[in-house]
């Protein structure tokens, strides 16, 4: 089975965001970048599929030069090879990203392509499903369970207050939600091996699509609240405030 996984390099979740000098992007100084957490689930699931059915796992990443490090992380987890679609920046328009990835994936004859359900920087949750549509492949987004038997698969996705069970045939695209699996940590041996695994770099030239960033701002600070009191004796005052002041109860 040939399995593709698309990944992205993103600021760590603990990052305190500062706005850059252009007022349209974040200040990257001092920011720690990591493999997008949802992509870790995608890589893990791909490795499990390979363990089950054999084959190879190819990691594809659209990003700047620095994304090589992110690809190495996935290779250290156990993926076999990587492709960096090297761009000067990753555009915000998900269709531009999806088209670039689809053009690369189309040539790969993949049986299964996995994505994280979203990247925690842009929070768009669109690229994986767009790629599936562009390639004309069946797809299921935000899955928490996947079972593959030969050329058919069943996935489960959580929707508001229920679980959808979806059947589809391969080749297909799925995007991973937290809960799908427990991603493995790269072992030292994996990290050493990853250094020698093939990583191909292809330059891509992207436009900004249909989105023009006017500004990036920090959310308004919440007004300072007040401590109603200490311990259970403060509860009546809190309930009173919720009823009569905030009017939410």
């Amino acid at each position, binding site marked *: 089975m040939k399995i593709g996984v698309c990944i992205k390099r993103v600021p760590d*979740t603990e*990052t305190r*965001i500062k706005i850059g000098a252009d007022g349209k992007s*974040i200040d990257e100084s001092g920011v720690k970048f990591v493999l997008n957490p949802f992509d870790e689930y995608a890589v893990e699931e791909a490795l499990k599929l390979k363990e089950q059915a054999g084959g190879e796992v190819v990691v594809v990443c659209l990003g700047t030069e620095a994304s090589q490090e992110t690809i190495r992380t996935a290779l250290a987890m156990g993926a076999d090879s990587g492709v960096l679609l090297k761009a000067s920046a990753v555009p*915000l328009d*998900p*269709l531009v990203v*999806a088209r670039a990835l689809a053009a690369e994936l189309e040539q790969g004859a993949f049986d299964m392509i996995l994505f994280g359900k979203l990247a*925690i920087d842009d*929070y*768009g*949750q*669109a690229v994986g*499903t*767009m790629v599936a*549509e*562009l390639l004309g492949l*069946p*797809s*299921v987004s*935000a899955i928490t369970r996947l079972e593959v038997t030969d050329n058919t698969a069943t996935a489960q*996705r*959580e*929707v*508001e*207050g*229920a*679980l*959808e*069970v*979806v*059947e*589809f045939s391969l080749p297909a695209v799925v995007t991973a939600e*937290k809960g799908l699996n427990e991603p493995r940590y790269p072992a030292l041996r994996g990290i050493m091996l990853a250094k020698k695994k093939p990583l191909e770099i292809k330059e891509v030239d992207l436009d900004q699509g*249909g*989105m*023009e960033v*006017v*500004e*990036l*701002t*920090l*959310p308004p600070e*919440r*007004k*300072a*609240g*007040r*401590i109603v*009191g*200490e*311990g*259970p004796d*403060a*509860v009546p005052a809190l309930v009173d405030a*919720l*009823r009569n002041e*905030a009017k*939410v*109860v």
Partner: protein
Amino acid sequence: MPHILAVLEQRGGVAKKVSQETLAAARSLADDLECEVHGLLIGPPNMKGDGLGEYGADKVLTSLDGELELYQASRYGQVAAEQATAGEYAAIVVAATSLGKDLGPRIAARLGCTLASDVTGISGSDGIAVSRPAFSGKAIYRIKITTRPCVISIRPNAFSPILTSHPGTIEEVSAGNGGKASDARTVAVKAPEHATMDVAEASIVVSGGRGLREAEHFKLVEELAQALGGAVGASRAVVDAGWRPHAEQVGQTGKTVSPNLYIALGISGAIQHLAGMRTAKVIVAVNKDADAPIFKVADYGIVGDVFEVVPRLTEEIKKAKDG
């Protein structure tokens, strides 16, 4: 003149409440652009599509088929893209629900257009511009959308339904051709293991963190949530510890919520958690540590032991509700 297409959601043939919000967002954009709002409701044959005009739809298009009762990604995508192409639309608006987050990208890819997700503000007074959170709400983008059409998904609870005196018309449209055999098919919708309200949809959320010390103590959180008619949420720490299902996680790698009331119990307020709930209208925190970061965003705080404060709070809420 291009209009706005609002793709709506139904359950059991009845439009969901979030559809009123989708219409409100579409209506405000249409008012700026001086055009009409067309609602598209995809669902089972017995669905009427009535009662939506007063929420802002000039016309409601219904696409009816027995197979469309459940969300079928490919067919819904086909029907919506077909309608979006058949009319002349400046924008297609969906709700950023589980359904909309899957359907929006399908429509955009089929139309070959851009998609702005999880939008919290929308304006058509100088071209189409949107505000949308990034980094799970740690920052906000203001974006000009420079191409037409475009797809916009709106965050639930960010737009308030509007009421008009306009009745609106209803028109039945194509239900697509049934799709390909290889399409993914939703074969069942199961109730989750615990039948609970979804944390992202609820207008009141009660969340618990490490301060509860063990999984069993989440009963305190559940009881307060029940007394308030709200949903249970959880911090990443307790989800990673296996105390609660990940579907309840609030934060950057969980859900982003904007309820009317968010109550944080024994949650210190890590950056990634604050990112997921800071847009709540009212935030209440109960924590032993007076210096916990959660108090910096809370409107009301009680410094104290959750095991003493929460039972009392549940009791007082019950009393207040009965009174």
